[in-house]
């Protein structure tokens, strides 16, 4: 597959427009990022000028690294060439009581020796003034002495580095403030700055292109393994011996290409060793991994171990596939600014759902897609990639698709139209006069995101593993137009029918909305509308409507009587879904006292409701009405649509009765 070639292309294109000083830098090859604690400034001849502790924003540094040091771990970690921890750079580390990592216990001087050796070889190969200065200073072996003398590092009573750090010490010496838990001052990471005088404005070594290139050239020349690259097909190129880790985050030890698995059966048989089985060019590997790391940091979505990232090789903006419609439109507004107006007549003809909800939704979606289409060129390809790991050391590509830009947008649009349904979403209203904010719930037609679906199907307290697996399944539905998994649909419907299982009303209504959305999406051929369809005569739909009407009548009667109970319909909803005919008789029978009450106090309303009930009854085919078979998820569609319709009506009817709209109370949560 060409994921590694695509990443390479992305790297080359992105490099032109990206500077190094950024939150998520696109790293040059042979470099990695590390959080440094102290910056030591030297002058051109290698004398100590000053040192300072770095604040949180400044800590991230681009440092040169070798293949082994980039993915170092364990008890004997290899040193970085230039900037590293105290045990490597400080020649007087042991004199001040520093403890080396346990693997070096036999030969505690080893870390510093190997560091010095590498730095010397580098400077000898290409004597840059800055690195030369660093080398001269390090050779003097007085780093810790200078740091202590300048009050950057503390000493204890014996004149050694302290073995315990308390909060007071952290306040006094800000360099220690980043140490976590039981970390000793030995884990302090030093970075260098060299002031060469008035000619050179920038003292840092990580921004200096000369230093970066010098290291890259030296390192590539020092490697000796050449062979054929499986990615470009070129022969006689420098091969990577180890591939980078730290792809998803800086603590991630998982590698995408692991090159020496001799403990398993991965290449045994025809191949005698790993090099025979596969070889990747060094530059190709570095560039591809750096590009992937950068993309994940900027625009990747993470859920437990799963990371989903989608990008264009040209770096243009595209919508993220795992968001719900509202989040996606918000992101589009943020990234693109004003959206262009879409052709309104096109929408009216093209879209089957001619309700108000349907039309506004289609319009907003079209606008968003049009906004992205303007920026994407005809040849821009979109790549969607998902990475997952079963073990901490290795990563697998679990999903990979290459699409053209227009195809990607079309598929997204198709998904969002397919499963759109009015969902209760919270919006913040800010009042400029009082400067307060209010969170309000509004019904917006929206396609649920995989996260919403997972929470609705499995509950709020879903485990991370299940959440991740569900998101991965839904990714295929979104991009590949695969059918929505039936088990998810069934679960959502089942959970939504059990009203008693929800803590508050909003959650329950959201669950209903998502269940309806999924049911509608998996039965696309029946083209359900987001608004009430008065002509639909299918049994389940009509039963749902009946339930909604009965609930409405009872709720009004309870309100009028000042009682605060649940309605019968609400209590019997689950049973209604299983045995509609018999449960309906119970519900209808139970309505009689409430009808009497309403007859005296809300006669016009009651009349309206009676007419509505009769209408719905007449739409039934008698044989279907008398059957007690289980209802499919369609009843939720009827129920929900009828509820929303009655809500709208309630505004009108209540105005006539001159009393407060009770449906707002219902929505406020109980």
């Amino acid at each position: 597959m060409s994921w590694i070639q695509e990443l390479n292309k992305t790297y080359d294109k992105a490099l032109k427009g990206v500077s190094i000083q950024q939150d998520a830098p696109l790293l040059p090859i042979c470099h990695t990022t590390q959080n440094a604690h102290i910056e030591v400034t030297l002058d051109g001849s290698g004398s100590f000028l000053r040192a300072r502790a770095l604040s949180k924003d400044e800590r991230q540094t681009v440092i040169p690294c070798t293949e082994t040091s980039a993915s170092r771990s364990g008890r004997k970690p290899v040193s970085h060439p230039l900037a590293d921890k105290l045990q490597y750079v400080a020649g007087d580390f042991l004199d001040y009581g520093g403890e080396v990592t346990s693997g070096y216990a036999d030969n505690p001087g080893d870390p510093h020796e190997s560091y010095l050796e590498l730095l010397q070889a580098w400077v000898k190969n290409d004597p840059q003034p800055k690195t030369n200065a660093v080398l001269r200073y390090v050779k003097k072996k007085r780093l810790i002495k200078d740091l202590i003398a300048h009050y950057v590092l503390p000493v204890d009573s014996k004149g050694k580095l302290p073995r315990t750090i308390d909060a007071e010490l952290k306040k006094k010496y800000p360099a220690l403030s980043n140490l976590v838990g039981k970390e000793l001052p030995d884990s302090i990471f030093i970075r260098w700055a060299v002031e060469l005088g008035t000619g050179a404005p920038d003292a840092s070594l990580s921004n200096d292109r000369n230093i970066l290139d010098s290291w890259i050239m030296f390192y590539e020349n020092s490697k000796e393994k050449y062979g054929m690259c499986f990615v470009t097909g070129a022969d006689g190129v420098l091969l990577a011996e180890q591939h980078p880790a730290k792809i998803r985050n800086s603590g991630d030890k998982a590698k995408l290409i692991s090159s020496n698995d001799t403990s398993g059966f991965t290449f045994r048989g025809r191949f005698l060793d790993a090099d025979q089985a596969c070889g990747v060019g060094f530059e190709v590997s570095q560039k591809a991994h750096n590009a992937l790391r950068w993309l994940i940091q900027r625009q990747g979505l993470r859920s437990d171990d799963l990371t989903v990232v989608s990008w264009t090789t040209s770096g243009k903006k595209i919508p993220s596939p795992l968001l719900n419609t509202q989040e996606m439109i918000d992101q589009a507004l943020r990234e693109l600014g004003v959206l262009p107006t879409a052709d309104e007549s096109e929408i009216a003809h093209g879209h089957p759902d001619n309700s108000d909800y349907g039309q506004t939704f289609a319009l907003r979606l079209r606008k968003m897609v049009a906004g992205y289409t303007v920026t994407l060129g005809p040849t821009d390809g979109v790549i969607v990639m998902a990475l997952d790991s079963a073990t901490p050391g290795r990563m697998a590509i679990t999903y990979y698709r290459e699409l053209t830009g227009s195809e990607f947008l079309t598929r997204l649009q198709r998904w969002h139209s397919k499963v759109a349904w009015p969902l209760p979403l919270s919006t913040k209203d800010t009042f400029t006069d009082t400067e307060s904010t209010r969170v309000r719930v509004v019904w917006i037609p929206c396609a649920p995101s995989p996260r919403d679906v997972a929470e609705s199907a499995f509950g709020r307290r879903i485990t991370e593993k299940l959440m991740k697996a569900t998101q991965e399944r839904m990714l295929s539905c979104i991009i590949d137009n695969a059918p929505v998994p039936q088990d998810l649909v069934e679960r959502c419907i089942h959970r939504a029918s059990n009203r008693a299982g929800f803590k508050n009303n909003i959650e329950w209504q959201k669950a209903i909305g998502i269940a309806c959305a999924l049911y509608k999406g998996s039965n696309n051929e029946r083209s359900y509308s987001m608004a009430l369809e008065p002509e639909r005569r299918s049994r389940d739909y009509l039963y749902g409507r009946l339930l909604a009407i009965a609930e409405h009548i009872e709720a009004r009667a309870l309100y009028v009587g000042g009682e605060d109970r649940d309605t019968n319909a609400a209590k019997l909803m689950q049973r209604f879904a299983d045995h509609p005919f018999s449960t309906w008789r119970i519900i209808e029978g139970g309505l009689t006292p409430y009808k009497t009450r309403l007859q005296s106090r809300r006669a016009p309303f009651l009349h309206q409701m009676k007419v509505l009930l009769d209408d719905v009854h007449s739409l039934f085919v008698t044989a279907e009405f008398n059957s007690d078979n289980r209802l499919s998820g369609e009843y939720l569609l009827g129920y929900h649509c009828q509820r929303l319709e009655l809500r709208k009506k309630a505004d009108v009817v209540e105005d006539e009765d001159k009393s407060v709209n009770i449906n707002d109370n219902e929505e406020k949560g109980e």
Partner: protein
Amino acid sequence: MRNAIEFTVRGVFAMFTDPLTKLGGEKCSYQVPTYEALKGITKSIYWKPTLIWVIDRVRIMNPIQTQTRGIKPLNYGGGNDLAIYTFLSKVEYQVQAHFEWNEFREELSADRIDGKHYEMALRAVERGGRQDVFLGTRDCQGYVEPCKFGSGSGEYDNRAEISWGLMFHGFDYPDEIGKPEFRARFWIPKMEKGVINFVAPSECEVRKFIREMHPKHFTEGSTFRNVKEGMDQ
């Protein structure tokens, strides 16, 4: 000399492993079959050392979908690991292949009989193959049926060209190239209207030498025997 067969192979899962992901153990499949995998399927249908199968073209019938599964691969020293493999799911391919005589097997030149192998291959295709058919790796079972190449409608019949980057083509085994070398070939596949036309192995430009390997020799009497001899017994 007639030597071409056409068949369709389908399966629930397929794994045409990408060599980049093979080493790490988290195998990911290519999106289209490799020449070597199809050659392996054809060899499972019918093969004798006298001949070499050459795959002409393949047609992809179903939409390319992937499915991941968690696997517990075994370790060499005992125990097992955890890995995630990405398979292709619900695959169906129509394949057109023909065989050529293996000129490097002089000892079998008496077996190059016109019609014999062709008839046997046809019969084998009708019966679904002589040996187990698998799609890339042994755990992806495949089923073979005879068919006419180009019949039926495929998912990609109306698609313009789709191309992938450098992909594995096949292996050069010593008995088929005449040298004691084991090599790997690579090429850049292109799918036009759902059909991939393979280049012949000799025309692949990118090759990697893997190691030295020696071919197995067949001698009459010890490693194979004449049919008449068997019947007498």
